[in-house]
């Protein structure tokens, strides 16, 4: 499978990464180089093999469904991009999304 420029553009949009038109050819060739190399996995017979999703063999623990922290608004907001020099912001702000 080889990616065309339209697919590279679509994947970049899905990943929310801006790609300039003049970057597309190089990116396309790099991604195709990597995907071409990955293609060798198709040669492995995996019939009847259960996919391995996690890194450990232990079953994931369940925990009691209760609030374990909170009341730390200032800490949560302390690194907000628009916190300003005077300290934490009061909200996270984004460009207007409702007309």
């Amino acid at each position, binding site marked *: 499978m080889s990616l065309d420029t339209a697919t590279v553009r679509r994947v970049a949009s899905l990943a929310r990464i*801006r790609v300039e038109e003049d970057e597309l050819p190089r990116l396309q060739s790099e991604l195709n180089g990597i995907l071409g190399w990955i293609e060798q996995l198709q040669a*492995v017979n995996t019939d009847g093999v259960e996919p391995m999703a*996690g890194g450990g*063999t232990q079953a994931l623990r369940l925990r009691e469904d209760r609030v374990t922290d909170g009341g730390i608004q200032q800490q949560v907001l302390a690194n907000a991009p628009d916190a300003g020099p005077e300290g934490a912001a009061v909200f996270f702000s*984004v460009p207007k999304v409702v007309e």
Partner: protein
Amino acid sequence: MTAPTDFTIAEARTALAKRELSATELTQAHLSAIEALNPRLNAYITVTPEVALQQAKAADAALAKGEAGPLTGIPLAIKDLFCTAGTRTTAASKILGNFVPPYESTVTANLLRDGAVFLGKANLDEFAMGSSNATSAFGGVENPWKRTGDDTVLVPGGSSGGSAAAVAARLALGATATDTGGSIRQPAAFCGIAGIKPTYGRVSRFGTVAFASSLDQAGPMARTVEDCAILLGSMAGFDPKDSTSAQMAVPDFAAACARGVKGLRIGIPKEYRVPGMPAEIEALWQQGIAMLKDAGAEPVEISLPHTQYALPTYYIVAPAEASSNLARYDGVRFGLREEGSDLKDLYERTRRAGFGDEVRRRILIGTYVLSAGYYDAYYLKAQKVRALIKRDFDEAWGKVDAILAPATPSAAFGQGEMQDDPVAMYLIDVFTVTANLAGIPGLTVPTGLDSKGLPLGLQILGKPFDEETVFAVGSALERAANFTATPSVRAAA
């Protein structure tokens, strides 16, 4: 007398306990070494002298009262992927901007509980994605080793390149690091030091910036195997804040170093003899086999038939998980923000400006392999091959107690070499990715020098949660190899 920066952690503990030097003196010696050499090596992104001296003062008070912990007064470098409350944590990325965590990672909290001193935050590949430390937004790291009669600047390996260079150049007694595909074991080999990636689940991932969550595992780097065991004993342990943390007691790893290898069966995987592997690596491996045999172990040839598929499997699984983990960097709640005409434009401009080339490449690969129509062909297929790679090891454990293999297919290479072809760079991790995919422990031990005077390492792989045998074999190899060479760029040289 040994310079304080040349101490092993075990020696430093004894010297501190006997009050032959104070924790403040030991810390100051390292801070002076950093001041002298870090402008050149760039092993630290952030140096924290005030924090370190304050912690050293507290260590001296604890020592005076006879209340020392296992690491009281031991100066360490902390990979800048571990969140440290109040100290900027960058993951070597522009996108984290001036992020100052309000909380402490479990690993660093455990080290502080045991009395450690933090000298600063060590350089790394951006988000730990790389094998040469070249992708750091804060610049590359110089390997303190040089080829004989040649001043070429060599890479320290990656992603924990700053941690490895700091320990090798005597700018720290030990360091924390993380390993997703070889990021502890490969730089340890390139810099002539020891480093262990523990079993998945042995060390908490809480507060460590995530790359690929099913592969990421933190571990220590130090100049001896025993020092790694001491550090791991402190870093490891059950943590309710990490759902994949193993509910298991932490054994006495340092005690295991003295066990010896008499009667142990050591697997020699024939598939690790890869095409194009330099004769020097093969010779080193044979020497390692002979050393363990002399120490009483029995080498056994084994087969791990899916080894050749480990790297392409890794380069589906790791980018897929990364594309998901790195979705959180959106310019809204923390880190860099680039303004945009609407919300999507803000996201896209922020992520374009904040992530470097390699990180963007991996996010795109990950997004593609997870996207509708390709998920089964790539991601699900990779998860199945991963299961087969793990099965190879499970079958091997029926025949052997541990496995000996090379750590890397070459010694350290020059800065700028191998930067043009992403796949060529990926191949450096050929011997290390298997342990991450299977979730097993792996330890690099410096074992010899190549013909140009650069360090080479061998790797011991072990059964899940059997780091003790790994340490026993590693220590035996270390004693036999008697690696005493030092890099030309180092403190007190």
